[in-house]
């Protein structure tokens, strides 16, 4: 068989260069290293100075022991296996309102068939419920036709990048530090990331004048800036935006002709009394900005909040202020994948329309919800204090979301040691921390940071009873690290 020697069609030299460019640190090198250590733990007991790997790299609450909301799982089980609804002893296993809600949801699904592809934006009745939930939350109406249910919030973000980015001359303004889905997605779609820096000294504040400067700078280089990404509450930074700030952002987008991409997946995770989550839609409408004034895409997810249903892959984007022609294109792109998974769609509708006062499940639901949220607030505080107690470490408060992003003022010796092995200093710190304690955090370079500053991102998700041990191991490691590298 004759065949000229050739580079295989799928090889590093021949694949899409945008794939090579794309990076995603949350499941990057440190995690591969952790997985190797985990293997080692399983095969050779006692070979490492710790007996478990603690994955604090990723916002994955149920993998660290958080329990799902009982009512949600009751409803899902009944929707997945509706034959149960006909059984006489079903009341022994399921609460009455879960049974009622499952029936209601099934009646919204054509043929009660949860195994069928739905409408490409998601089941209409579930979108209606979500629209009602949004209206109750904001005090302004929402439209089911503006909602696209997706397999998690991430596919929605990808869709927007696909629609917005024509070439590397199209830029997207992103906060630094940012959740690296944005940088990865922009790279994958061949666009340019236009950074705007959050100010660590003022609790990760956002100064519109800074954003404007970055915008103008990009424009002067020939970049057409298409959109502004705002993550509120912030990831990895955890700040909750003040209303005044949000108003300035809305005005800015309107003046500069930018699409506002509002990542609001942590809207239920707010731990401070002096701040409140306000959706950008609510802020815009309260300013009198309507569909003609602001093009806004708001992202929500079932993965975060108090429900933490990461593995189900559910979420939605609410799309307002676009022409009918553009909306058709949104629909068309969504239709190529047919629809998002039905289980995730159902949970999205439950999250936006949970049990109410008077419902049979309300008391237990609210106890579970408040239990999780108050525990998250306590863990946020405990870990924040612990980081602040370490030599050379300063840590802003986590006002919301699920992360702490402490700054490491590393001694020069440590920085030099990192350079010598061609590693970022925060990556060296994270690796040493993992090797000594089994704790997995993500180096700040994965999120972007002001050059010359170093951070790590650590989740607040290990169960509360594990936190003291984590803190003491962290302390011991850090002291030893500083002893080794102190100037």
């Amino acid at each position: 068989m004759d065949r000229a020697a050739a580079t295989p069609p799928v090889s590093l030299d021949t694949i899409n260069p945008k794939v090579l460019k794309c990076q995603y640190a949350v499941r990057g090198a440190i995690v591969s290293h952790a997985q190797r250590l985990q293997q080692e733990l399983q095969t050779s007991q006692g070979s490492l100075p710790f007996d478990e790997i603690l994955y604090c790299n990723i916002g994955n609450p149920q993998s660290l022991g958080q329990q799902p909301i009982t009512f949600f799982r009751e409803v899902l089980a009944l929707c997945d296996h509706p034959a149960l609804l006909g059984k006489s002893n079903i009341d022994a296993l399921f609460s009455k309102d879960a049974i009622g809600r499952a029936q209601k949801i099934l009646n919204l699904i054509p043929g009660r068939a949860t195994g069928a592809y739905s409408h490409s934006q998601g089941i209409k009745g579930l979108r209606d419920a979500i629209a009602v939930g949004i209206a109750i939350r904001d005090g302004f109406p929402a439209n089911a036709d503006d909602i696209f249910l997706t397999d998690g919030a991430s596919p929605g973000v990808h869709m927007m990048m696909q629609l917005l980015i024509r070439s590397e001359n199209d830029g997207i303004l992103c906060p630094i530090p940012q959740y690296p889905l944005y940088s990865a997605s922009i790279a994958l779609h061949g666009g340019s990331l236009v950074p705007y820096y959050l100010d660590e000294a003022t609790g990760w504040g956002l100064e519109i004048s800074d954003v404007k400067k970055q915008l103008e700078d990009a424009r002067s280089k020939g970049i057409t800036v298409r959109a502004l990404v705002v993550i509120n509450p912030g990831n990895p930074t955890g700040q909750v935006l003040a209303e005044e700030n949000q108003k300035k952002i809305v005005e800015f987008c309107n003046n500069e002709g930018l699409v506002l991409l509002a990542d609001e997946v942590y809207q239920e995770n707010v731990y401070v009394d002096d701040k409140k989550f306000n959706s950008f839609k609510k802020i815009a409408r309260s300013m009198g900005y309507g569909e003609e004034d602001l093009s806004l895409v708001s992202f929500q997810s079932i993965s975060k909040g108090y429900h933490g249903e990461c593995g189900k892959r559910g979420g939605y984007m609410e799309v307002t202020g676009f022409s009918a022609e553009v909306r058709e294109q949104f629909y068309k792109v969504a239709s190529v994948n047919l629809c998002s998974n039905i289980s995730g769609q159902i949970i999205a509708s439950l999250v936006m329309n949970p049990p109410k006062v008077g419902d049979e499940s309300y008391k237990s639901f609210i106890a579970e919800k408040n239990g999780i949220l108050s525990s998250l607030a306590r863990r946020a505080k405990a870990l924040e204090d612990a980081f602040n107690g370490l030599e050379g470490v300063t840590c802003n408060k986590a006002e919301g979301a699920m992360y702490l992003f402490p700054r490491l003022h590393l001694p020069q010796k440590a920085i030099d040691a990192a350079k010598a092995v061609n590693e970022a200093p925060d990556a060296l710190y994270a690796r040493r921390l993992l090797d000594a304690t089994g704790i997995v955090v993500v180096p700040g370079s994965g999120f972007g940071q002001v050059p010359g500053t170093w951070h790590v991102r650590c989740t607040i998700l290990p169960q509360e009873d594990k936190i003291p041990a984590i803190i003491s191991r962290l302390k011991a490691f850090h002291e030893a690290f500083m002893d080794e590298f102190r100037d």
Partner: protein
Amino acid sequence: MSPKPLDYESLNENVKKVAYAVRGELYLRASELQKEGKKIIFTNVGNPHALGQKPLTFPRQVIALCQAPFLLDDPYVGILFPADAIARAKHYLSLTSGGLGAYSDSRGLPGIRKEVAEFIERRDGYPSDPELIYLTDGASKGVMQILNTVIRNEKDGILVPVPQYPLYSAAISLYGGSLVPYYLEEEANWGLDINHIRQSVAAARMKGITVRAMVIINPGNPTGQCLSEASLNELLKFCFQENLVLLADEVYQQNIYQDERPFISARKILLDMGPPMSKEVQLVSFHTVSKGYWGECGQRGGYFEMTNISAKTVDEIYKVASVSLSPNVPGQIFMGLMVNPPKPGDISYLRFVAESKAILESLKRRAHIMTDGFNSCRNVVCNFTEGAMYSFPQIRLPPKAIEAAKSVGKAPDVFYCLKLLEATGISTVPGSGFGQKEGVFHLRTTILPAEEDMPAIMTSFKKFNDEFMEQYEDYRGYSRM
């Protein structure tokens, strides 16, 4: 008022080029008519449960227990669920790290990927590596990921069968590549002719296109043909000679309605060939829980298996998968159940087999009813649906009908399908949505409407078609003789 930041003009051009007829014009019109109260029979998409097919019992029992693990502790659980479903739920929960609500490994749960590998080994007789199997939210996501990895720019061409399932043309448009068509031969039962394919490749290369990959859909969609061993052999040799990666869409492998050409995987044929080909030809194979006799479209469960792709490249594919965190866990469990169903001796085995058999045998009968029904219509010729879920009759439109279509600005088959929809409520997809030879028209319908409704549907179609032909023909029509 300033232009909107995202208007039609400033949209990504590649997005504008995308067409996906399966949920396009006909479907949208059908949905409108449904809202107005007309009874619509949706045969536009392979969506069995939407047309009354019941889910298999065992997987739903297992998944319900996995969704609500607190049930497993309840004393009543043994009354409502069989012991093997309970055991299987415990098994899958033990494979997760935190139940259904936790992101899994970005490639899918290792335990389920192992089950898929074992299934592939049983099916093909060759071991399969779980590390090279990635679970995805439906096979479509996997196809899109692989095409995005292969396509660098518009000079990269992908060989795609015509007619094809328009996910391929849509994805190629979206990622800015070039579609290089190879025509299936309708008169030869939708067979492929390797010489014609060679010509297509040569023509593309003359235009400066680097042909990178070849897509095969086996069993075919919309055409239903099942590839013979000889054909697969020929194709793989061709890929070896031309240095192409073979993308084998095998999502309909359970849907086989004849005995002459059972399903054989591309991987088996490749490995049968031995070195050097078995070690060099690159292959990606796709499967799903949406088709077969499972029809669990709404779960969005699928996988792709990579053969002969280097570790470094696999790492890049993993990296991109990790950006989306993980495929949905319930869909992964459905995949595990599909590749590892109840066995003889299991409590649920007999019921599972009875349910599966009933669905497959009914599909086979419906394949015949539809093919015969279409062939009894004036100016309609229809190849038999050997596999998959569709019928793709050729509609020989009289010149007057083609003119009438042109005069209202519609493609002739779109015109016919719209009239069919309005007269009968049957919602199909015009053949132009899949690609066809110039001047030859088809429509795609599924074989999924309930068996008891089939005779009435075919009668209704025949009545419409024969009246349409009467209306638009010259006094002497085409003869099928």
